[in-house]
């Protein structure tokens, strides 16, 4: 069941070249490639169904609205939301987290209140809270990591009290791969009456997720890291939570009535979707979850564990290479960050690029984590359903070449 290599034929870009070599795409944590099924769905929408949604009193507009709402229903089913209305379409994970930070935080946070995050958060789950903290006088506190790169929940003892109003954490790290202790942090949040917010940008694409079973208040994720297009994502919350969330953005489509001084809101989820939404992107998102359901998320996860185990095993054979992240594949996803001797990650990325291998180099939007690791930057290889062991072998060979070029003895 671990072999998904037949899927590669669905991804046109995987048979292209980069710098004269067959493309080895190892940057799926940044964004994944798209299968023809998604491309065709979006193209077909524009060719046959395009109109604005929720407005026109003509057949085409009704079809467009059905396509958009149909996509919502698919995404809801994919993560097991209780109803499609619990899925709010956003521009992506970042926008979803901002919608919670502004929509909930501005009303519920005050001076002395705390937002508890972890040291491995993406900037998308740090900066919105900093902005809201500046408006409200709240402060941010952080759970440290263990030596094994896990979130250190033993530190909850010192950090969790009734001042904590929000507990925000990543479901899966985009740098270390670490899977977040979701159940434990959700319970911790509940125990002090705080809300819990999961940055699931990496989690939803890489493992089976049942949002109702997580026991959390809000979940944010995006389409483009799970075979879908950029420009669309989702915010999930149970209906009674969404009812207590204020819209962070105002405009058309989100109102019931507009007076000169005040307005009333449309129903959920539309009150959170101001303006014309990304309709073709929603259709593409729906096609992406159809594709992943056909593969099966258990198979996606099993494949990822296998290729990650293989990558960790092969990378361990490269002298002077340090991997940052859990070594136990059951505790992690497929983002593998590393440094090699004194070769700066950007030099590594250039050397790999010349051999057709795409990896990311930098701080991967996790400056606080990189300061904690005490490295200014890392290189990161990351995998998805179409990744194959042969690509890991090419990576390892290219890293050996980098050692030679840099004269690392």
């Amino acid at each position, binding site marked *: 069941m671990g072999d998904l290599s037949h899927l590669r034929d669905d991804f046109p870009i995987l048979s292209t070249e980069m710098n004269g070599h067959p493309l080895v795409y190892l940057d799926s944590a940044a964004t994944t490639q798209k299968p023809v099924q998604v491309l065709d769905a979006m193209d077909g929408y524009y060719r046959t169904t395009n109109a604005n949604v929720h407005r026109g009193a003509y057949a085409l507009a009704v079809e467009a609205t059905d396509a958009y709402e149909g996509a919502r229903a698919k995404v809801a089913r994919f993560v097991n939301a209780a109803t499609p209305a619990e899925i709010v379409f956003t521009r992506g994970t970042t926008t979803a987290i901002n919608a919670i930070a502004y929509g909930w935080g501005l009303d519920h946070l005050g001076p002395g209140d705390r937002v508890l995050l972890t040291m491995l958060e993406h900037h998308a789950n740090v900066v919105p809270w900093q902005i809201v903290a500046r408006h409200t006088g709240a402060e941010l506190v952080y759970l440290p990591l263990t030596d094994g790169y896990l979130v250190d929940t033993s530190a909850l003892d010192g950090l969790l009290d009734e001042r904590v109003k929000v507990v925000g954490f990543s479901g899966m790290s985009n740098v270390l791969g670490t899977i977040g202790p979701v159940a434990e942090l959700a319970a911790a949040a509940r125990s002090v009456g705080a809300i819990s917010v999961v940055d699931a940008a990496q989690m939803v694409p890489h493992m089976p997720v049942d949002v109702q079973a997580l026991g959390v208040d809000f979940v944010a994720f995006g389409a483009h890291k799970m075979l879908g297009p950029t420009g669309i994502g989702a915010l999930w919350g149970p209906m009674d939570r969404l009812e207590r969330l204020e819209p962070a953005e105002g405009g058309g489509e989100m109102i019931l009535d507009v007076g000169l001084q005040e307005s009333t809101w449309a129903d959920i989820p539309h009150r959170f979707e101001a303006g014309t939404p990304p309709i073709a992107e929603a259709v593409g998102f729906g096609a992406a979850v159809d594709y992943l359901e056909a593969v099966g998320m258990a198979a996606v996860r099993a494949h990822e564990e296998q290729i990650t185990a293989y990558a960790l095993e092969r990378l361990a054979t490269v002298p002077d290479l340090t991997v940052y992240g859990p070594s136990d594949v059951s505790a992690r996803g497929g983002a593998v960050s590393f440094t090699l001797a004194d070769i*700066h990650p950007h*030099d590594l990325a*250039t050397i790999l690029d010349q051999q057709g291998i795409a990896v990311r180099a930098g701080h991967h939007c996790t400056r606080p984590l990189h300061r904690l690791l005490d490295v200014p*930057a890392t290189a990161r290889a990351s995998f998805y359903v179409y990744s194959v062991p042969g690509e890991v072998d090419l990576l390892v060979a290219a890293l050996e070449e980098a050692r030679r070029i840099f004269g690392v003895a």
Partner: protein
Amino acid sequence: MSLDELYREVILDHYRNPRHRGRLEHATAHAEGQNPLCGDEVRIDLVVDGGRVVEIGVTGQGCSISQASASMMAEAVAGKSVAEIEGLSSRFRAMMDLEEGDAGIDESRPGESLGDLEALQGVRRFPVRIKCAALPWTTLKEALEGDAG
């Protein structure tokens, strides 16, 4: 374009053994530069006296291209007048294709006009890395412009 041409030995030597490294307590001018895309950082401290850079100190961190470029630049500009440095800077920028003009490189006599800096020629073929090589120069320019004396 081979990678060995980009990562010439002299570049790796400057990367690993940077010249004029350190902060200058008695600097008359300084500036800090960052390349937000890849996080390269360079800080230049200068002692400028009578229109001449009598001392230069470089600190920072980043890729081999940015740090080697800073070290080579420090070596090239130490002791030079501000006018001479402007000339060097424009020849360097021309070499990187950042500026119109004669790169001033005599291929038959490498090292003649820009010294070790000419080893950075290969960077021109790697457009995303040109910013790394140029960072120390833009930082130096800022420091010189900010120098009161």
